[in-house]
C-alpha cells in the first residue's frame, strides 16, 4: 500500500462541490506526490476545508474523480480510513477527557495493536511534550497545546497519509518551528502530508503547494517555481512619507498592489507590464513629478506576492486587464 517514490498519493480531477447555489470547490485538478509535504493555501472561504473533506471521503463531491492511495473515493472511503489521519480545523477531541484518555481512546479506535498501545502513547507524550499535562482535561489546555494534542492523536496509528487542516493557527512561532520539524520527520518516515494554511512562512516550507481562490485552483507548483513566475514584477519603494507615496503609486498604470512594510512599500505589477528597469524609472519619475521623491529597486518575489497576484482583487484586476 505504501507508494514507491515518484508515486502519486492523491489524484483528483474536475473536483467540484456545490452547496446550493454556492460553488465551494470548482473543477479542481490535483496531484499530490507521495512522501511530500503539500501545502494548501487560500483565503478564508476559498474551499480548503471542503476539498480536504472530499479527499478523505467525508463529503460527497458534486462532480469529479478522486483517487487516494489507489482507492476510489467516495466509493472506497471506508477502506481508506485505516490509512489516513485527519486533523480537523476545529478542535475535535473530547474536551472532557484528559490528554492520556484521548490518546487511549484513539489508539483503540484506530486499531493500534494492544501490545504496542502503551509504548506508543508514552512515546507520543514524550515527543509532543505532554509529560506534565497527561492528566489535564483537553478542554482546559491552551489553543497551541490543543493543536499539539490533535496532531499526536492524528498520527497515533502511523498513517500513510495525513490531512492537516490549519494545524498551527493557534501555535506561537517558536512552537510552530517545532511543529514543522515533526511534520518533516513524518515525511521522512514515508508519510504524505497535506497541510492547509494561511501562513506564508509555513507555505514556504512545503515541498509543493496549491493556491485556492473562490474554490478555483489558481496556481500550484514548488514555492520556487511559483515565485519564479513573478520574476521582474516586484519592487521595493523607499520613501520619506510612505503613506502618501502609497496613494500615488496605486494609480501608476500596471501596478497591481502596494503594501506598506515598515518605512518602505512593496509593489507588485501586472504580468506584461513594463520591464523591471523601466518600471523603477517610471515610478520614480511619477512620484518626483508629484513632489514625492522616492527610490525604487527590484526585489525577488516571495510567496506573499504570489498569493496577492493570484487571489482576491489584484487577480481580478489582472484578469480584466488581460
Amino acid at each position, binding site marked *: 500500500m505504501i507508494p514507491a517514490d515518484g508515486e502519486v498519493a492523491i489524484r483528483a480531477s474536475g473536483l467540484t462541490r456545490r452547496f446550493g447555489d454556492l460553488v465551494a470547490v470548482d473543477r479542481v485538478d490535483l496531484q499530490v506526490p507521495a512522501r511530500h509535504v503539500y501545502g494548501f493555501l487560500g483565503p478564508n472561504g476559498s474551499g480548503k476545508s471542503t476539498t480536504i*473533506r472530499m479527499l*478523505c*471521503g*467525508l*463529503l*460527497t463531491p458534486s462532480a469529479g474523480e478522486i483517487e487516494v492511495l489507489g482507492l476510489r473515493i*467516495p466509493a472506497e*472511503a*471506508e477502506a481508506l*480510513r*485505516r490509512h*489516513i489521519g*485527519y486533523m*480537523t480545523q*476545529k*478542535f*475535535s*477531541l*473530547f*474536551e*472532557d*477527557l484528559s490528554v492520556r*484518555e484521548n490518546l*487511549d*481512546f*484513539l489508539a*483503540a*479506535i*484506530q*486499531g493500534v495493536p*494492544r501490545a504496542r498501545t502503551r509504548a506508543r502513547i508514552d512515546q507520543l507524550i514524550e515527543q509532543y511534550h505532554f509529560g506534565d499535562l497527561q492528566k489535564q*482535561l483537553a478542554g482546559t489546555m491552551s489553543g497551541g497545546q490543543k493543536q499539539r494534542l490533535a496532531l499526536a492523536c492524528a498520527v497515533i496509528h502511523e498513517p500513510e497519509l495525513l490531512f492537516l487542516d490549519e494545524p498551527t493557527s493557534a501555535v506561537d512561532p517558536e512552537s510552530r518551528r517545532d511543529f514543522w520539524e515533526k511534520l518533516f520527520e513524518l515525511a521522512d518516515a514515508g508519510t504524505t502530508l497535506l497541510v492547509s494554511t494561511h501562513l506564508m512562512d509555513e507555505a514556504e516550507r512545503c515541498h509543493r503547494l496549491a493556491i485556492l481562490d473562490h474554490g478555483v485552483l489558481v496556481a500550484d507548483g514548488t514555492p520556487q517555481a511559483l515565485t519564479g513566475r513573478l520574476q521582474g514584477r516586484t519592487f521595493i519603494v523607499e520613501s520619506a512619507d510612505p503613506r502618501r507615496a502609497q496613494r500615488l503609486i496605486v494609480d501608476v498604470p500596471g501596478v497591481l498592489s502596494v503594501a506598506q512594510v515598515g518605512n518602505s512599500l512593496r509593489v507588485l505589477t501586472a504580468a506584461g507590464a513594463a520591464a523591471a528597469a523601466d518600471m523603477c524609472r517610471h515610478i520614480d519619475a511619477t512620484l518626483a513629478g508629484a513632489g514625492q521623491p522616492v527610490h525604487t529597486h527590484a526585489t525577488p518575489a516571495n510567496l506573499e506576492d504570489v498569493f496577492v497576484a493570484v487571489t482576491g482583487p489584484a487577480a481580478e484586476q489582472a484578469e480584466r486587464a488581460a
Partner: protein
Amino acid sequence: MNGRRLWAIVVKELRQLSRDRITLAMILGIPIMQLVLFGYAINLNLRGLDAGIVDQANTAGSRALVMDMLATDVVSAARTANTPQQLMAMIRRGDISIGIVVPPDFERRRIDGRPVAQVLVDGSDTTVQSAAAQLAQTPLDSAAPDLRAPPASTPPTPRISVVSFYNPQRVSAINIVPGLIGVIMTMTMVLFTAIAIVRERERGNMELLIATPLTSTELMVGKVLPYIVIGLLQTSVILALGVSLFAVPIRGSVLDVYLAAGLLILANLSLGLLISTRAQSQFQAMQMTFFIFLPSILLSGFMFPFAGMPKAAQWLAEILPLTHFLRLIRGVMLRGASLWELWHDVLALVVFVAVMMGAAIGRFRKRLD
C-alpha cells in the same frame, strides 16, 4: 463489530458521564423527586372525609360496624340517607366523598360469609379511593363473633366490598409507582441518547469519529450500553423507594421487573438514537423528545384508563413503548403475572427496539453531507 472499538466508546461515555455533574444529578434526582412528589400527592393519609351512611339493617351488629368505621377517623358522618340511590346522588353532587351502605340482610350475609356492606367511592379522586380501601379493611367486630370467619392464621378476606365510581382502574400510589418507572425512563432515556450524539456533532467530535474506521453499529451500540446500566440503576432506586415508602408490592418475580424495565430502556434509548440522526442541535433533540413524551404520558394509560380512550388514540398508544411497558409492569408487580403470560407486550417492545435501532443505524451516515 469490533469489540475493542465498542468497549472504547463505552469507556469514553462513562468517563464523560462521570465528569458531567448535572447529568449525574439528573440520573438520581429525577426519579427521587418524581416518586416523592407523585407518591405523596396521591397517598395522602386522609382524615375526616365526609361520608353518607345508609344503614338499612339497623341491627346491633350493623350499628357496631358503622361505629367502627367512624372510629378510624378516616370518615366523619356528614349525612344520613335512606337508600343507596340517595347516596349516589350525593356523591354525584359532591356533597359527600364516601357512602357506606349496610343492606337490610346484613345479618344473613354475615352468617353466609358474603360481603356485608358496601363502601361507595368517588373514584375520580384517587386519594379518596385509597381511604375507602382502608375502610374496607375494618374487621367485623369481635362483640358479635363472625361464625364463618376463617382461622386467624390466614389473612381475613375483606368482607366489605368497595364500589368505585368514575375511575374503575383504581389508580393509587400502588398503581402509580410501577408506572412511574416507565414515565421516568421515557423522560430521561430518550433524552440521553438523543443528546449524546447531537452534542458530539455540535462540538465537532463527530467529524473526527467518522474519519476513523469506527462503524455506525459500534458507535450506536457503544452509546446505548452505558445508559442501559444507568436505566437499571434508576429502576432500582424507584423500586427501593416505592417498596420502602409506599409499600408497593412486587408480586411477580423481580427478574421479570428488571427484564421489562430493560426492554423499555432499550426502546427509549434506540428511539433517542433515531432522534439524534435527525436533530441538528441539542435544543431540537429536546423538542423532539417532548413531542414523544407528552403523548406517552397522556395516552399510555398512565394518567387515564386505556379502555376509556377513543379508538384512534388507542391505536396511537399501541405504538408507544410506555403503553406496553405499563401493561407488563402492572401485570408483574401488581398481579404477579410472568412475562411469559404477557408475551404480546414483550413482543411489541422487542419489535419496537429492533425497528428503531435498525432505522437509527441505517440513517446514520459516516458523511458530513
